[in-house]
C-alpha cells in the first residue's frame, strides 16, 4: 500500500533544505568567483585556490591544524578505546555514572569547555600554544571515540568472546583475534570523527591558543573581521569538503563489519 503524503510536506522539506544549505552553497560558489567583491559575479576561476597555497599564513595555520588534529586524534583514539573496553566490564551503576561523565563533553557548550580549560591552564601556569590546544582537543575527542567504540562493542555482544574462551583462547588471544578485529571499524570511525572535530574546532581552540599557534578556523575568523575575501571562501570550501568526506568515511567504516546491524555515527 502506498501512502500519499500531504503536498505541503514536500514544500516544507524543500524550504528547510534551502534554509540549511543556501549559505554553504554561497560560500562554495563565490570561492570560484573571479571578482574580489562578493556582490557581483564576474566569471569562474581557480585563482583563489592557487593563491591559498602560496599564502604563508594559511600554510602555517594549516600546519598547526594538522599537528594538533593528528596528535589529538591518536591520543584520544587510544584513550577512548581503552575507556570503552574498561567501562564495559564494570557494574551497571558505575557504567551509567562513568559513561555519562565521558559523554558529557559532547553536550557541554564549547564556550564552557574553552573557558574552563583556559582557567585550568592559567592555574598551572602553562604557556598557551599548540600543547594546550592539543590537550583541549583530546578532552572532547575522547568522548566521541568512547561513544562510537562503545556502540560497536554493544553491537558485538559478549557471546563471541565467550566462544573464543570456550575454544581455548586466553584473555589476550581473545582480545587480539576476536574483540579487536570486531571493533576495529568502530575505532577507525571514532578516529575519523575525532580528526574532523579537531580540524574544525574554533570555540575551544580560540580560548586556549597562543600567539604562535593559530589554527585554520582561528585564522579564518581573524581574516573575516577585515572582510570576506574569496581566499577565505576557497579555504572554507576545502574544509567543508574534507569534513564531509571524513564523516562519510567514518560512517562507512562503522558499517563495514559483516553481518552487523547498521549503526550510525551521526546521532548528534
Amino acid at each position, binding site marked *: 500500500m502506498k501512502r500519499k503524503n500531504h503536498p505541503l510536506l514536500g514544500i516544507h522539506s524543500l524550504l528547510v533544505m534551502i534554509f540549511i544549505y543556501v549559505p554553504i552553497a554561497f560560500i562554495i560558489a563565490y570561492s570560484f568567483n573571479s571578482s574580489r567583491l562578493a556582490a557581483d559575479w564576474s566569471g569562474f576561476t581557480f585563482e583563489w585556490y592557487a593563491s591559498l597555497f602560496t599564502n604563508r599564513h594559511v600554510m602555517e595555520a594549516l600546519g598547526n591544524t594538522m599537528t594538533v588534529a593528528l596528535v589529538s586524534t591518536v591520543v584520544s583514539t587510544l584513550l577512548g578505546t581503552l575507556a570503552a573496553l574498561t567501562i564495559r566490564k564494570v557494574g551497571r551503576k558505575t557504567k551509567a555514572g562513568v559513561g555519562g561523565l565521558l559523554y558529557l563533553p559532547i553536550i557541554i557548550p564549547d564556550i564552557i569547555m574553552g573557558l574552563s580549560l583556559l582557567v585550568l591552564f592559567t592555574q598551572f601556569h602553562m604557556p598557551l600554544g599548540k600543547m594546550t590546544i592539543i590537550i583541549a582537543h583530546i578532552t572532547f575527542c575522547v568522548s566521541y571515540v568512547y561513544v562510537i567504540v562503545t556502540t560497536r562493542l554493544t553491537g558485538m555482544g559478549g*557471546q563471541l568472546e565467550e*566462544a573464543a*574462551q570456550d575454544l581455548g583462547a586466553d584473555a589476550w588471544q581473545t582480545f587480539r583475534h576476536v574483540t579487536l578485529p570486531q571493533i576495529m571499524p568502530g575505532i577507525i570511525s571514532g578516529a575519523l570523527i575525532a580528526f574532523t572535530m579537531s580540524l574544525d574546532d574554533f570555540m575551544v581552540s580560540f580560548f586556549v591558543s597562543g600567539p604562535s599557534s593559530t589554527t585554520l578556523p582561528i585564522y579564518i575568523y581573524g581574516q573575516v573581521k577585515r572582510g570576506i575575501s574569496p581566499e577565505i571562501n576557497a579555504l572554507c570550501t576545502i574544509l567543508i569538503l574534507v569534513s564531509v568526506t571524513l564523516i562519510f568515511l567514518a560512517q562507512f567504516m562503522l558499517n563495514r*563489519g559483516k*553481518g552487523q546491524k547498521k549503526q550510525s555515527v551521526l546521532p548528534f
Partner: protein
Amino acid sequence: MIELSGVEKHFQGQVVVHPLSLTIKEGEFLTLLGPSGCGKTTILRMIAGFEQPTKGKILLDGADLTSLPPNRRDLNLVFQHYALFPHMTVEDNIAFGLKMKKMPAKEQRERVHEAVTMTQLTPLVKRYPHQLSGGQQQRVAIARAIANKPKVLLLDEPLGALDLQLRKNLQSELKHLQRSLGITFVYVTHDQEEAMMLSDRIVIMNSGKVEQIGTPREIYATPTTLFSATFVGENNIFSQDGRLFAVRPEKLKAVRNQDGAKRMGEVLDVLYLGSIHKLIVQLDDEPMTVSIVFDFTDDRPWEVGEKIGVNWNTEDEVVIGS
C-alpha cells in the same frame, strides 16, 4: 565422566538452580529439558565455566573443574545463536580452537578436514558466516566445537532458531554424529519431542529443581511428578480418594455402553489427526476434559454432544506424587 555434586546457583539472593547432584556417563546423550527460565542453561554455563556455582563442585574425569576458567576446560559449548566469528571464513572459524592451542599446521589441516567432512561443509569452507544459511551456520558451530575433540560437547538449544523441517533433519544428523564420535553430549532444550528423540537420559527441570531423571521410556511411561507427567507428551490426570494418577490418552477407551465405565462424559470435539483420532471429552462429575486417542478400527464415527463412558485398565494408572 562429568559429576555435579551439590551444585547450586544464586543470582542476587534468588535461587536459580537448587542443589543438584548428577553423574553423566561417558558417551551418553543427556538432555536437560524444561521450560524457559528453569535453570537448564545456567547449569550448562556452569559446566562450561561461564558461571561460577554458588555452592558445590563440578568434576570431569574425577578432576575438579570448578575453579578453572572456560579456556582450560576440556569441553566445548555450541551456542544457541552459534556465535561464529564474523570476520573469519568457515575454515578459520573451525581452526580457531586448534590455533589457540598452537597445534602444528599440518595437524590443524587434518582436524579441520575431518570436522568439515563429518558436517558436510566441504564446499563452503571459504565462505564467511553471513554468506551461510541458518542450518549451515549451525553446522559450522558444531564443526568448530568437535574439531577440538573435546571429552564433552555442550549444546545450548542448538536447533532453537531453525524452522521445523530443518530442525528434524539436523536432529537425526546430531544423533548420528554423537554415535560415530562417541563423545558425551549434554544437550539443553525446551522441546520435549526433540529430547525424547535424541536422548539416552533426560533430566526434567522446573523452576530450578530437578523433577525427574530417566530414559525417555521411563519418563513417558512412569512419570513421578505432576510436572513431568504433563510436560512430556499429553496426559490425563485423575484424582481419586486423595491420590493423583495419570492415564495416557492412548490408554483410555471410549465406550458407548456406559455401564461399568469408570467415568461418564460428553464429547466436546472430535479431531482427525491423520493416523489417529482424538476425542476431547467433558467429564460429568469433574470440571475437566480428557483426551482419548485411538485408531480407525471403529466404523461408526463419534459425534459431538454424544454421551459416552470413559474406561481404562487399572494397570495403566500411573500414580504420581500427591
